[in-house]
């Protein structure tokens, strides 16, 4: 049983992403915005398992998270697929300290990418109304999300990479 948990650690953590996404702890937020939780899992997973795995699990994550949100017209899938593929091409750095900061930067970039793709969908959908009222709140969301994701990534991603590598070895 213990061995099963050790081997499937990454999948068990994967199951918890939608739960933390739903939980939405406000005390961790900034301007009402949360860090983009799925990237914290996707980065270690894609770095260890490669681009194709990253892409597939980006799609899976997108499907699950889209099912939890009520916005039928907008999807998180494009951003997560792109991030999954991109993260798979990154190799881990030998210097631990540099590695930590790299996770922060990479996740910030990923969050920026996902946020921009999401905002693009919203603006495209509301383009016919000429409704650019959504542009400023959207940019605020992206900036807050990028900041928080970059802040938390060094702590969470480093731990997850260590755990996933350990579970792979066993």
């Amino acid at each position, binding site marked *: 049983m213990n061995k099963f948990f050790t081997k499937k650690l990454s999948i068990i953590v994967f199951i918890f992403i939608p739960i933390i996404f739903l939980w939405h702890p406000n005390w961790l937020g900034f301007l009402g915005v949360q860090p983009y939780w799925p990237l914290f899992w996707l980065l270690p997973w894609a770095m260890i398992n490669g681009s194709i795995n990253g892409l597939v699990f980006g799609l899976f994550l997108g499907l699950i998270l889209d099912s939890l949100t009520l916005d039928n017209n907008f999807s998180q899938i494009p951003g997560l697929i792109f991030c999954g593929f991109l993260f798979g091409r990154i190799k881990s750095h030998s210097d631990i300290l540099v590695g930590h900061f790299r996770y922060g930067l990479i996740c910030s970039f990923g969050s920026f990418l996902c946020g921009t793709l999401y905002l693009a969908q919203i603006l495209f959908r509301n383009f016919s109304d000429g*409704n650019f009222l959504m542009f400023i709140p959207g940019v605020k969301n992206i900036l807050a999300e990028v900041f928080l994701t970059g802040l938390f990534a060094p702590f969470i991603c480093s731990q997850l990479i260590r755990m996933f590598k350990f579970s792979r070895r066993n």
Partner: protein
Amino acid sequence: MLNIRRISSGRWWHKKKIWIFFGIFLFLVFVRISKGSLYKDFFYFISRPFWPGQFQKEVILKSTNQESLIRLNLLNKDNIRLREILSLQQSSNNDNISAAVISRKTGGWWRQITLNKGSNHGVEIGSTVTGPGGLLGRVNNTSFFTSSVTLLTSPESKLGVWVDRSQINGLLVGSGDDHPSLILYSKKADIKVGDFVSSSPASSLLPPNIPIGIVKSIDETSQSKKTAKISLLAKPHLIDWVQILKLNI
């Protein structure tokens, strides 16, 4: 030598009692000049618990509340009776379901709350959700035990609303921030900051006359329409309990 000491200790200004009396005299002079302000202030503090006004204020407030409540009930009954006569849409208090908020996303991209009552408890898609203050949103999705509500602030939310003062209909569109936009498709629409916005009596999606918010600012830059920002009365980021209203169409 001894005589000199006796004489000096016998002077009136060497007597302590005299100085005490002098001090008291000065104090009384001060009291007289200040017209007893010290006494009055002291009395203010010690008599505070026994002021008649406090009790009286409570009684008046209580009776005013009771009067308002009775008047509200009478108006409500009147409203229901008139709506029955005119065969208009109704909402009944008997069909309300109380639910707790178990997950909330009130900032960022997704503006929704999840409630602890679902299809098992009779919640239907499209039901109206209100909280202390007024309208919060509409049920968009139900599971067996939970239901998800699209908030008025969500970019997905579009509802017909009513400006009470000028009696005009408008469209309330969520813009992804805390203040949804009210769009009035007429440049001449009469709207002012501070106007009260409620659900439209003509709406087929919502029960009529549910308070929504107050006009916060008006943008008149567009050629064909007026846009106003609305400050919502119900605050979804603070509310823990809500009411789900069933719509009788």
